[in-house]
């Protein structure tokens, strides 16, 4: 298409050199045919329709999630008066904060070790929890906490579990950042007589800081959102927001779930956008 335009423009002698050059590089713009647009947009619609419905019905003045009656804040008011829900939200935030801090430290170390020292066992164990079905991590941790550590399931077991599955995400992001950097930077620091700690403090860390922040935000989001592993490691001791949502939708579909879902969605969306600002390649590195 562009090619034809360029030719036509060329005939009219109004063509610019840049247009011809560009058209030479991208002659096959018809690759983006109308069918591709339609199918792609349909996929976007499929992804966003459910979320839109949840948000819309959270403001709907009706007990049933069926037809639009009128606007209301009722479900949000209900939510903020729901003691169990507030406790669950508090737990979720506390767990996510502790777990993401620990996972950021351990994950950054793992990322550096994977890139610089190529510790094979570490790479394997960092990626195993990311690659395996979550339920397997959940039940094996359940067995381990109860049978070996003799731990009462609760906040501690959930925090440990969340650190376990978050380390891999932080490590992968940090490693990717390190891999994209020139090794000679660190060699130069060493040549100038910097100790390993000084090299890390003044060269490595400032360079990987965006990746560390992005990894930490990712770990926080993953922790706030995790259902499966939390489900197995929380016991009856502790409720988190996803566990509470699960039990609510298991019993009945109520608009209060719409409201809590909307708030949770806003939180994770904000965190994801923030993470993507710090390290744009996070989005693609995430598995």
């Amino acid at each position, binding site marked *: 298409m562009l090619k034809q335009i360029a030719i036509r423009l060329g005939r009219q002698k109004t063509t610019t050199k840049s247009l011809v050059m560009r058209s030479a*590089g991208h002659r096959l713009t018809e690759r983006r045919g109308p069918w591709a647009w339609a*199918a792609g947009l349909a996929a976007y619609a499929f992804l966003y329709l459910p979320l839109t419905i949840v948000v819309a019905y959270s403001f709907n003045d009706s007990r049933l999630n*069926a037809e639009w009656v009128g606007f209301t804040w009722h479900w949000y008011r209900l939510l903020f008066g729901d003691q169990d829900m507030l406790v669950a939200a508090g737990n979720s935030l506390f767990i996510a904060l502790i777990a993401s801090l620990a996972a950021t430290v351990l994950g950054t170390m793992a990322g550096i070790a994977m890139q610089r020292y190529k510790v094979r066992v570490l790479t394997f164990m960092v990626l195993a929890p990311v690659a395996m*079905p979550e339920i397997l991590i959940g039940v094996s941790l359940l067995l381990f906490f109860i049978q*070996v550590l003799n731990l009462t399931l609760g906040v501690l077991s959930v925090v*440990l579990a969340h650190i376990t599955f978050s380390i891999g995400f932080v490590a992968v992001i940090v490693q990717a950042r390190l891999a994209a950097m020139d090794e000679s930077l660190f060699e130069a620091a060493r040549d100038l007589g910097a100790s390993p700690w000084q090299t890390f403090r003044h060269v490595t860390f400032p360079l990987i800081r965006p990746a560390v922040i992005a990894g930490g935000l990712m770990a926080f989001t993953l922790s706030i*959102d995790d259902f499966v592993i939390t489900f197995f490691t929380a016991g009856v001791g502790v409720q988190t927001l996803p566990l509470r949502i699960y039990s609510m*939708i298991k019993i009945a579909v109520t608009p209060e779930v719409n409201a809590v879902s909307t708030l949770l969605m806003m939180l994770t969306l904000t965190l994801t956008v923030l993470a993507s600002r710090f390290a744009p390649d996070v*989005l693609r590195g995430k598995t």
Partner: protein
Amino acid sequence: MTDMRAPPAPGTRLTKWLVSGPPLLFLLLLVAAPGVITMLASFRYPGEFGGLAPLVAADPQTLQGMTLETYQFFFSDFIYTEVFIKSLFMALATTLICLVMAYPLAMLIAHSPKKNRNLMVLLVVLPFTSNFLIGIYAWMIILGPQSALSQMLNGVLGAFGFAPVHLLFSPFAVLVALVYVHLPFMTLPLYTNLEKQEPALLDAAQDLGANAWQRFWRVTFPLSQPGIFAGSALVFIPVLGMFAIPELLGGTGDMLVGNLIKDQFLGTRDWPFGSTLSILLTVTVLLIVWLAAKLAERGGRYA
């Protein structure tokens, strides 16, 4: 290739273990050890009140409490194998549908102007970072008997004299939600692959007389095999372990392996059998990964 760099400075070995030690130790304790414990638990008898007898016992006699009974039990009744096979089919169907939906989406993003791409990728990632339970819940609304979709569908069916259908609590609902939750997993690796493809190859194909379909089928598609394999693994494997989607959206017969495992651990509390199912699922996953790696190797000539 020879290493041109200077020999490591003294203290490097110490630094290496100072850096890799803590995460390694943590993961040995919370990934490797629980894995081994699950394997051991699968060879044990269930405890009197559910669970199992303590694994770490001072008495070496407890080693005699090991058994293959749970494995025999699994293969003695076909219903368990059947759940495994059904889960594999469900995962395969999900993967294929995701592939068909993700391909045009990934192409649309990859062929968009560079400045729009990051935003378009972000728009794919956002629904996937929001909790998957919210997605399940939304599909409960959309497919529920009072929803506009159900009413409309049953209105049309009724006009032609067919009996009304229930969309919710069916394998259809399970499949829709599985695809919904995993679509981004397929889209992202595909996009990464398609973005890297050299557009000049398509020009060359065109110069050689290939039409649009031939260019897609004989250039773009074969070149995208690594992306397809990566995306398929990212969809297929997690679907195998799902339990929340079938539980909340499926009927009683739509159980997957995940539900079976969950019931053994939190329902009937037969932990040895639950562990056996976990081990068998692990073996299945490893087999599939191995198979995919083999296939990818064969397709590797395109990479």
